[in-house]
C-alpha cells in the first residue's frame, strides 16, 4: 500500500477508536443526557440529511463563510500589495491596523447585528473582519520580504516595473498568501457560526444553539460534527491547492534529514 493510503487507513482507524470509546462510555460511565452517544448522533444526522432539513442551514453557513472569506481575502491581499509599496502611508496606518485587529471580534458581533440585521449580511461582515486582517498581514510581510536581488536581476535584463511585479513580486508572495488563507479559513467558519449564535434564524450556529436550548445534546453534537467535517474538508482542499501552487519549493522530506549543504 502507498504511504498515503496507509495514512488514510490509520486516520480512519483512530476516528473509529474514538467513537467506539465514546459509545462504550456513554450509558455506562456517563449519562447519555450529557454527552449523547455516537449511534444516536448518526441516527439524528441520517434523519436530517434524509428529510433534507439540514441543507438550508448548511447552505446559509457556507454562504456566509465563503462570501466573507472571498471579500476579506481579496481586500486583504489588495491592501497588502498596496501598502507594501507606500512606505509612509503604511507607517501612518500601522497603529490603527494593529488596534482594529486587536478588537475581539465577538465584541463586534452584536454591533454588526444591530447595523446589518439578523440575516446573513451581519455574519458575512464578521467573517470579512477576521479574514481581512490575517491575509493582509501575511501579504504585506510577503511583499516586503521579496529578495531585492531577484528584482535587480530582472531590472538589469530590462524588465519594466510591471513585469517585475508579475514575474517576481507576486510569485514570491504566493507562499505567504497561501499561509494567510490557510490559517484564516477555520476562523472564517467559526466567525460565521458565532454570529449565528448571537442572533439568526437559520444556519448551523442557529441550529446548534436551538438544540442546546432544548437540551438536545444529540442535535447540538450532530451540528458540531458537521462543522468539524466542513473544516477538515476545506482544509484538505486548500492544502492540495497550496501543494500545487508551491510545487517549486523544496519539501522538508525531499532531502534526507542527515544531509547538509
Amino acid at each position: 500500500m502507498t504511504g498515503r493510503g496507509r495514512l488514510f487507513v490509520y486516520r480512519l482507524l483512530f476516528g473509529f477508536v474514538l467513537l467506539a470509546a465514546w459509545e462504550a462510555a456513554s450509558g455506562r460511565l456517563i449519562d447519555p443526557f450529557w454527552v449523547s452517544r455516537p449511534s444516536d448522533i448518526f441516527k439524528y444526522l441520517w434523519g436530517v440529511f434524509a428529510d433534507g432539513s439540514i441543507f438550508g442551514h448548511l447552505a446559509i453557513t457556507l454562504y456566509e463563510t465563503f462570501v466573507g472569506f472571498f471579500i476579506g481575502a481579496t481586500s486583504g491581499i489588495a491592501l497588502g500589495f498596496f501598502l507594501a509599496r507606500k512606505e509612509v502611508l503604511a507607517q501612518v496606518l500601522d497603529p490603527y491596523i494593529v488596534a482594529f485587529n486587536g478588537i475581539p471580534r465577538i465584541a463586534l458581533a452584536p454591533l454588526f447585528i444591530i447595523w446589518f440585521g439578523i440575516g446573513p449580511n451581519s455574519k458575512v461582515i464578521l467573517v470579512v473582519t477576521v479574514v481581512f486582517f490575517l491575509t493582509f498581514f501575511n501579504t504585506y510581510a510577503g511583499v516586503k520580504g521579496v529578495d531585492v536581488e531577484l528584482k535587480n536581476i530582472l531590472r538589469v535584463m530590462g524588465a519594466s516595473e510591471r513585469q517585475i511585479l508579475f514575474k517576481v513580486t507576486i510569485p514570491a508572495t504566493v507562499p505567504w498568501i497561501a499561509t494567510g488563507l490557510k490559517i484564516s479559513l477555520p476562523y472564517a467558519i467559526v466567525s460565521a457560526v458565532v454570529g449565528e449564535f448571537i442572533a439568526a434564524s437559520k444556519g448551523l450556529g442557529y441550529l446548534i444553539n436551538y438544540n442546546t436550548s432544548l437540551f438536545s445534546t444529540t442535535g447540538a453534537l450532530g451540528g458540531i460534527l458537521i462543522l468539524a467535517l466542513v473544516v477538515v474538508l476545506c482544509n484538505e482542499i486548500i492544502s492540495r491547492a497550496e501543494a500545487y501552487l508551491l510545487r517549486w519549493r523544496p519539501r522538508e522530506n525531499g532531502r534526507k534529514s542527515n544531509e547538509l549543504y
Partner: protein
Amino acid sequence: MPPLLSLNQVCREFQVRGRQVVAVDTLDLAVEEGEFVTVVGPSGCGKSTLLNLVVGLLPPSAGRIVYRGRAVEGINTAIGYVTQKDNLLPWRTLVENVEIALEIRGAAKNERRRRAGDLIGQVGLSGFEDHYPHELSGGMRQRANIIRTLIYDPELILMDEPFGPLDAQTRIVLQDQLLKLWRASRKTILFITHDLVEAITLADRVVVMTSRPGRVKHIAAVPIPRPRDVYQIHMSSEFREVYNKLWNELRPEVAPA
C-alpha cells in the same frame, strides 16, 4: 575611438553601523569594444562592488562611469550581468529561468524554448529542463545563471566569478566554451575571478586590484595568440612569464604583510 566603458576616479563607500568602509577607491579603468578583460584581487577588495557600479545598480560616491561616450545614470540595460550568487527564480524551472530575458522582450514561446534548449545542451544540462533550482546542484545552477545572460546577447557582459562553484574539469570545459562564444560573437567581457590561471587563460588584459580599498594596482596585456588551447595553455613559456609577473603584483595583496 573612445573606449566602450570607462571609469574615471570612481569611489564607492558604505556606511556599516556608523563605520565607513571604502570598497572602491579612485579607480580608473577603460575597456575597449570586443575586449576580454579579467580582474583579479583578494577577497573583499571590492570586485563585486565594481561590477554593481558599472551596471548602475549602485551609484558611485564620486567619479564618473562613461558608457559609449555617455555618463551612466541608473541601470544600464545594454549590459548583461552574471552575478556571483546564482539568483535563479526558485518558482521557475531551469528552462523557464534561462528564457526569462527573452520572455521580457516578448519573444514567441517556441523561439524562446528553442534558444534556451540550445544553450542548455551546450553547457551539459539537457534532461534537467523541468527541474526547479532546488533540485539542481550548485554547479548546475551556476551554469544556468551564465546562459540566462548569454541568451539575450547583451553587448557588454559582466561576470562575477562565474566558474567559482564549479569543479576544475567543468571549469576548463566552460572556459573553452566561453572563449568560443566570445570569438564568434565579438562581445565585450569584463570577468572577475580569484584564479590567476583562469584570468590569464581568458584575457586580453588582466587587471590586478589592491586589497581593500580596491584600486587598480597593475594591468598586464596577455600576448598569447588566439585561438588558445585552454587545456595546454598553462604549459607555454609565454604563460609562465605573464603568470610570474602578475603573481609578484598580487602576492603582497593577498598575503598578510
